[in-house]
């Protein structure tokens, strides 16, 4: 069963058409690597999935339920969007941790706010909060940061910050976790620790969409590769297909240029 199905997504910024009809689907436990030249629309696609942009056309299904249809404006109310975007998590290139909160508080904040809307919270406030805190601690431990729970973001290295950001996204147990070039803002010696965490998630069969310029990593970690150029999916397939036997001229050129460097 497809966890995610994207149909005919188009996105215009005024005159500029950035996405020209994107289709793909993702099975539970699959990792999809999204590659392509700068400006091809990868970030825009992730932002559409997380409703940071509203697609001009197209539909999004999660677990076979229609959650977004561009031709149905009632799906655009703030409430609907807020509920639906919880299917997705997003890890940003620039981490975007909340500077006034510790690593642990960065994880627990959103979950606590969501918990407030539930009836259990009113009954067992303390238990609910303890539970959330325990979950947060466990997640930080799972990304190797159990000794940094009470550190503020500025006291952490870039790699550590990004690991906190990944844990923060996992905290709400999204169906699909999206990464937008998670290592691009990092010094080269810090990319390894972040890639290792993502690799670990792939081994645990976390459903993911990963935008990356790390081709070797994409090849190792993904089950499916999408090569985008100028707002369209030019080629798709298993990593072996796309990286070893690209069919399209544009894919070949892109990979050649990439592996020359």
């Amino acid at each position, binding site marked *: 069963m497809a966890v995610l199905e994207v149909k005919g997504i188009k996105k215009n910024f005024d005159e500029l058409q950035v996405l020209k009809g994107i289709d793909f689907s993702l099975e539970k436990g699959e990792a999809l690597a999204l590659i392509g030249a700068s400006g091809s629309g990868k970030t825009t696609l992730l932002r559409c999935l997380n409703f*940071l942009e509203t697609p001009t056309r197209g539909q999004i299904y999660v677990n076979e339920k229609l959650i977004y249809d561009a031709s149905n404006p009632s799906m655009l109310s703030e409430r609907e969007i807020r*509920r639906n975007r919880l299917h997705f998590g997003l890890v*940003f290139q620039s981490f*975007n941790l909340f*500077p*006034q909160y510790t690593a642990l508080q960065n994880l627990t904040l959103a979950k606590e706010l969501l918990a407030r809307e539930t009836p259990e919270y009113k009954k067992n406030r303390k238990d609910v909060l303890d539970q959330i805190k325990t979950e947060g601690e466990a997640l930080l431990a799972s990304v190797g940061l159990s000794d940094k729970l009470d550190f503020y973001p500025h006291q952490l290295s870039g790699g550590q910050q990004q690991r906190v950001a990944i844990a923060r*996204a996992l905290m*709400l147990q999204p169906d699909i976790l999206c990464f937008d070039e998670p290592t691009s803002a990092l010094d080269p010696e810090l990319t390894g620790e972040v890639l290792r965490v993502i690799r670990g998630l792939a081994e645990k069969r976390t459903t993911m969409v990963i935008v990356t310029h790390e081709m070797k990593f994409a090849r190792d970690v993904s089950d499916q590769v999408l090569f985008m150029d100028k707002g369209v999916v030019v080629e798709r397939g298993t990593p072996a297909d796309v990286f070893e036997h690209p069919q399209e001229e544009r894919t070949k050129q892109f990979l050649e240029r990439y592996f020359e460097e």
Partner: protein
Amino acid sequence: MDAVLNAITSLNEGFLFNLQLFGITLLLAIPLGLVIALGSMSKFLPLKWLTKTFVWIIRGTPLMLQLFVVLYGPGILFDIPMSNRFLAAEVAFVINYACYFSEIYRGGIESIPKGQYEAGAVLGMTRTQVFFKVVLLQVVKRITPAMGNEVITLTKDTSLARVIGVTEIIMSAERFTKQGLIWPLFSTGLYFLVMNGILTVLLSRIEKKMDYFKA
């Protein structure tokens, strides 16, 4: 000895006006400034431009002139003369300072990276939650130094109220100059120095309180 006591009492009474003007202005201009800031960032363009023009006028003209306008304006325009001079001073100060504060707030709010809002949104927070739980404290931290400057300026500006006849401390002191007593006038400076000394300590405490994070 009586003359000295008399002068000091008079200065104290005058300074009470400065303090009241200071206190009420802060109390009202701080929230009003936020309302104006939101207006000047509104997506509804007529409101945005109206607010911006108003702020431009207030910031572009002397506070001294604004005091006169508030004192005489209602009488000339609507035939309801402003009888209470202190009230007139209060209104002029609140409007003037709210406009300055609004620009500081706007700068602070606009300086918060878009990524902070987006990170909150993606985690399922409402706009209100993002503003109060994520953005606000960062804004407060960023604007505290600029607000501190304005607050210190305000203490001294309160003396301007004398131009419309509010007997604040300097006006009180001047009466003694006419009687040949010059020291009361000069000692008004001490009042302001002590007050600003206290404020400076308070402000740096507030800044220290927010030192635990970087924004």
